[in-house]
């Protein structure tokens, strides 16, 4: 290849995703931040700096860091044994359990909040602990939503780990504990660290959990930005915190990027086949069972609530889903919202998928120089940024920056799926990159030397390996889009609300029937997600979710 063709290829591959992210992310966010720096048209950075020195800002940042940090540690602690059990052991319903554990990821926080508080609240079975409205409840909620990320990421790595070094260590007389600490854990470390960094990002930017479970006594950076933007219109304050958030995210991504080394594809590995549980697995099995109970109890509370009308069991809440609510709370019946949600999710999925594929291809081509590798590394991190920005900033940013031709897009129906695609994009990229990284480049070279053109090489070498992860990534994107609420609520148009928006509206109105319908609709959303994830599980992609 000529020397100039490599950068050109890189540019061509990256061009579309970079432009899309530039227009729909960088432009709106920098527009909002600029409003903070130029409050009345004149450059006045003093106000922004002023906000950074407020004692309240310090408290907010500190709360965000420690609550997200503790939640991340806990998620890893409960996720590790579950990852082992669900990915190294073989028992009935294993895949169903894996799918079920991902359900919390998509449920609307307001509904989970109500379910959680029925447990922790004064009247609930765990009310005696007095945890309602405490940071403990917030951390528990964060773990509830994010444990699945650790299980998937670490589990995938565990599943494909070469079993022979551990066997060798055992043969040389190492105890199981020594094998775990000296062989297994070090090789899992990259997966654990990068999963932890993504969980930390999700926790630090979580909005609903902190508000709903914290009873408003605690503020995180994300909730503070939301309040400053939508309620107080304190744009300098919001800009200051947005910058703090972005800087923190970039630092975190840089650290994670360093620790996220891919396995060398040219080494043949012999992964262990999942085996039947033994007596020695009891501890891990119990821990997994406890985690499953922890996830299942709020979900079962929801299910039970949705099946009750007054004091009697009934399916009326589900029958009512085809109506517009007992007091016309809705314009469109819930069934129609489900169709809208599915359509939007389909659109978001293909957007996230095509962008994610281009990004993954661009960042995984073999780099020939340090500079090239660095460019690819920066690109990789760039597409993770949407995780670290408040939906309020993005939503308001759309309004003020996409308002004039050729970018008069703020009323486009494509904006909702696009915003959701941006949220799902990091998940897609992180699913595809390890797979593409794992293809031995010599296979492509062999194909080329046998006379295959570039396209033919892709079809015969990459595609057979890639199509399953692609389907899997689409399942992830689909589920993430189905449950997305923050950005959607800012953009949703009234004639076609999505299911989470409708649930939020139902639970926001008095009337027993509306409440029951909100629960029933949440169960439908959860079931739809579980179905999608179960379908993804059937594809048996080993590296699914290897973040």
């Amino acid at each position, binding site marked *: 290849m000529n020397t100039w063709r490599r950068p050109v290829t890189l540019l061509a591959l990256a061009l579309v995703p970079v432009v899309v992210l530039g227009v729909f992310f960088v432009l709106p966010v920098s527009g909002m931040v600029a409003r903070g720096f130029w409050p009345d048209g004149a450059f006045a950075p003093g106000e922004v700096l002023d906000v950074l020195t407020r004692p309240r800002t310090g408290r907010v940042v500190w709360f965000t860091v420690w609550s997200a940090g503790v939640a991340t540690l806990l998620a890893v602690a409960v996720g590790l044994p579950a990852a082992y059990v669900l990915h190294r052991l073989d028992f009935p319903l294993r895949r169903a359990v894996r799918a079920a554990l991902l359900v919390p990821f998509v449920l609307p926080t307001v509904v989970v909040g109500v379910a959680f508080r029925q447990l922790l609240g004064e009247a609930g079975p765990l009310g005696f602990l007095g945890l309602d409205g405490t940071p403990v409840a917030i951390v528990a909620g964060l773990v509830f939503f994010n444990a699945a990320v650790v299980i998937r990421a670490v589990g995938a790595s565990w599943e494909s780990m070469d079993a022979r070094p551990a066997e060798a260590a055992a043969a040389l007389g190492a105890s199981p504990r020594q094998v775990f600490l000296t062989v297994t854990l070090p090789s899992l470390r990259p997966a654990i660290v990068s999963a932890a960094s993504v969980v930390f990002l999700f926790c630090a930017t979580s909005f609903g959990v902190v508000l709903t479970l914290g009873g408003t006594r605690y503020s995180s950076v994300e909730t503070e930005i939301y309040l400053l933007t939508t309620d*107080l219109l304190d744009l300098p304050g919001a800009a200051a915190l947005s910058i703090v958030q972005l800087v923190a995210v970039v630092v975190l991504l840089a650290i994670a990027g360093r620790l996220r080394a891919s396995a060398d594809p040219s080494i043949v590995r012999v992964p262990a086949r999942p085996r039947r549980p033994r007596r020695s697995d009891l501890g891990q099995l119990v821990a997994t069972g406890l985690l499953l109970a922890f996830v299942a109890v709020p979900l079962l509370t929801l299910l039970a609530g949705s099946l009750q009308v007054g004091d009697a069991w009934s399916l009326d809440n589900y029958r009512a889903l085809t109506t517009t609510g007992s007091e016309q709370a809705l314009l469109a019946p819930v069934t129609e919202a489900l169709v809208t949600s599915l359509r939007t999710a389909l659109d978001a999925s293909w957007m996230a998928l*095509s962008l994610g594929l281009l990004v993954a291809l661009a960042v995984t081509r073999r780099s020939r120089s340090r500079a090239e590798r660095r460019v690819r590394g920066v690109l990789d991190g760039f597409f993770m940024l949407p995780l670290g920005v408040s939906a309020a900033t993005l939503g308001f940013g759309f309004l003020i920056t996409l308002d004039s031709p050729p970018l008069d897009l*703020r009323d486009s129906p494509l904006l909702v799926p696009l915003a959701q695609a941006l949220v799902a994009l990091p998940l897609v990229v992180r699913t595809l990159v390890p797979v593409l990284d794992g293809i031995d480049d010599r296979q492509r070279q062999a194909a080329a030397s046998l006379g295959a053109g*570039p396209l033919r090489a892709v079809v015969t070498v990459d595609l057979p390996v890639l199509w399953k992860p692609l389907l899997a990534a689409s399942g992830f994107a689909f589920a993430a889009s189905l449950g997305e609420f923050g950005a959607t*609520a800012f953009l949703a148009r009234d004639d076609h609300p999505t299911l989470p928006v409708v649930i939020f509206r139902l639970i926001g109105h*008095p009337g027993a029937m509306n*409440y029951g319908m909100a629960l029933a609709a949440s169960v439908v959303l959860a079931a739809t997600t579980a179905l999608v994830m179960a379908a993804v599980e059937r594809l048996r992609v080993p590296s699914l979710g290897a973040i």
Partner: protein
Amino acid sequence: MKSISAVLLTCAFATASCSLIGTGDDEERATAQAGGEVVLVTHESFVLPDEVQAAFEEQSGYELVVRASGDAGSLTNKLVLTKDDPTGDVAFGVDNTFASRALEEGVFDGYEHPTPAGVSDFELPGDEEHALTPVDNGNVCVNVDDTWFETEGIAPPETLEDLTDPTYEDLFVLPSAATSSPGLAFLLTTIAAKGDAWPDYWADLMDNGALLTSGWSEAYQGDFTQGGGEGERPIVLSYDSSPAFTVDGEGGTSTSALLDTCFTQVEYAGVLAGAANPEGARALVDFMTGPEVQAALPDSMYVFPVVDDTPLPEDWATFAQQPTDPWAVDPAEVAANRDDWLTQWRDVTTG
């Protein structure tokens, strides 16, 4: 090259999706009206029955496009941010706690709207140019679970002072003033009632075990004894209309609103400055105070009409009592002090 297949894939996906999103739009096109479209910008609680929207299109000859998202606060801020290039022709849903900010920023054009009997009672004080037309009103009031108090043999509270009485310790749940609009309304109630001593009142309230939640749903559905969940608290901050939704089917309702604790929220509609279709915008503002919309308000948006003698749903007429003399704070004062009040309020309530 690799990029070719990727581009091909993208194109294939793109075609598939265009047809998807296209289907929704085609239906809308079919109903396009000769007079062009009127775009209504509003909050996510906006609901009007299809037949009422159709009535507007038929009477005026304009096509109605609704763009709804966010709550009243974020609606107002959106209007302020986009005032040079509004996203629609009419805005509905700015309320009397946010209206002053919108007026100061010049979001609305003045319009000498027609005033059916009753409307002028709700006009925004200080709105000299008639920028805002009142459309609906509702009161944020403390609600009590009468059946609970009857069972316990305790007389329910009646006034703001009662809420700090140890008899009612740990019984009151309310949404936060910082994150919810009824919460802010209640803060204004206490400011109107207690004057400069309001922080002391809140300190007493918190000492008496009042529970703060993030929003109305969490308080009413989660913690109130008559809400959807299995709440434990029989006193909640809600609306004067709420008792109409706890009707027991035997001629009574199990909750009531304390009419001495109310603050009136008024929602306005207005023609946006720089509207693309000012004619159509004025037609829509007129329509909002017309009989069709006014009669649909209680069932659709859980608020009372502003026009006198508009028929109410049966349960409302029987069970939803409105206060005769609610508390009020001058909107200009709200605009000037909101941030300070909220900061002070946060200090008192988070201790």
